[in-house]
């Protein structure tokens, strides 16, 4: 380090040395980084247990230097329930994509939230099934082209894209719901703050915390990482707006 300078930002020690296999520009990597920064900053490595899904992040345990369990597709919410119920003082999170949380795992997701299970959901919503090659997801936008809706999502057949954060925020026992993104430095910093808040609420025992990340998939959207930011801004955010949707400490006033 040069004389007169100080370290401002470095790779967290709680990420393993293994190169993350996610595509260039993918927010999976970004969120992994933020989560491990928080584990380091909050000094909770020895009490964090994560559950990873089936999807691009199926190998999350290669990159996160914490105890982890691999769940069957869609079941992470039930697995996290089991862990948190028998280890209530640990920081437990369930990290899932849109197929895992909003298609095959919807029942487990909704019921865990309804029971107010005291763990954190990190929901990476990129409107497509990445790992399996770019098929339609429950959160694919109307008219968006994927390999199983090559003429664009037809809502008469496939239904409307699911707004999970909004649905989850209707549950009494859910403590905190925020939708974030990492398309700009400001939003990225907000995303990390949101995850931190979720962990803090969990440690306080306030109930389920749910952070939805409006994320990208450059590879299957057939866009460069730069272009994927534009897609998020122009197409995704209007339908999936960013912001705090539920906060048990700051209830919204009735209109």
């Amino acid at each position, binding site marked *: *380090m*040069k004389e*007169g*300078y*100080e*370290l*401002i*930002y*470095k*790779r*967290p020690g709680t*990420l393993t040395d293994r*190169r*993350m296999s*996610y*595509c*260039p*520009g*993918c*927010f*999976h*990597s*970004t969120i992994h*980084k933020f989560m491990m920064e928080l584990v380091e900053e909050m000094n909770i490595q020895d009490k964090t247990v994560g559950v990873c899904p089936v999807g691009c992040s199926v190998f999350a345990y290669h990159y996160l230097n914490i105890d982890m369990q691999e769940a069957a597709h869609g079941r992470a919410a039930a697995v996290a329930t089991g862990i948190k119920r028998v280890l209530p003082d640990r920081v437990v999170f369930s990290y899932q994509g849109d197929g895992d949380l909003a298609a095959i795992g919807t029942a487990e997701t909704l019921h865990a939230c309804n029971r107010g299970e005291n763990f954190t959901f990190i929901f990476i919503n990129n409107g497509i099934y990445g790992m399996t090659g770019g098929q339609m997801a429950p959160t694919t936008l109307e008219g968006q082209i994927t390999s199983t809706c090559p003429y664009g999502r037809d809502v008469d057949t496939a239904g409307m894209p699911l707004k999970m954060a909004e649905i989850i925020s209707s549950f009494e026992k859910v403590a905190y719901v925020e939708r974030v993104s*990492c398309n*700009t*430095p400001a939003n*990225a*910093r907000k995303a990390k703050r949101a995850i931190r808040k979720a962990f803090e609420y969990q440690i306080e025992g306030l109930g389920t915390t749910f952070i939805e990340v409006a994320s990208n998939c450059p590879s299957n959207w057939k866009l*460069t*990482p*730069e272009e994927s*930011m534009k897609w998020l801004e122009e197409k995704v955010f209007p339908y999936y707006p960013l912001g705090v949707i539920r906060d048990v400490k700051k209830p919204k006033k009735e209109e």
Partner: protein
Amino acid sequence: MAQKGYVEIAIEVCKGCNLCVINCPTDCLALNTSDTNSYGLHYSYLAEPEECIGCANCAVMCPDAAITVYREKKEKAAQSKEGRQ
């Protein structure tokens, strides 16, 4: 006058996604178009070191945590400022 900073980018970790480059407020980063890392990717590097202000936007955006950021300590920055006045 903004503080000065500098960054180190891990060449083999960088995937050349360009997000650091486009989010740098002083345009001091660029992809090295004449060289690649062992994965065949054009990695990012500090093309204009004098322009870096150590804001860490690049490191915040970098999905792969490839960037380390250093910034002048406040006393040194104050001295530089005095010197320039």
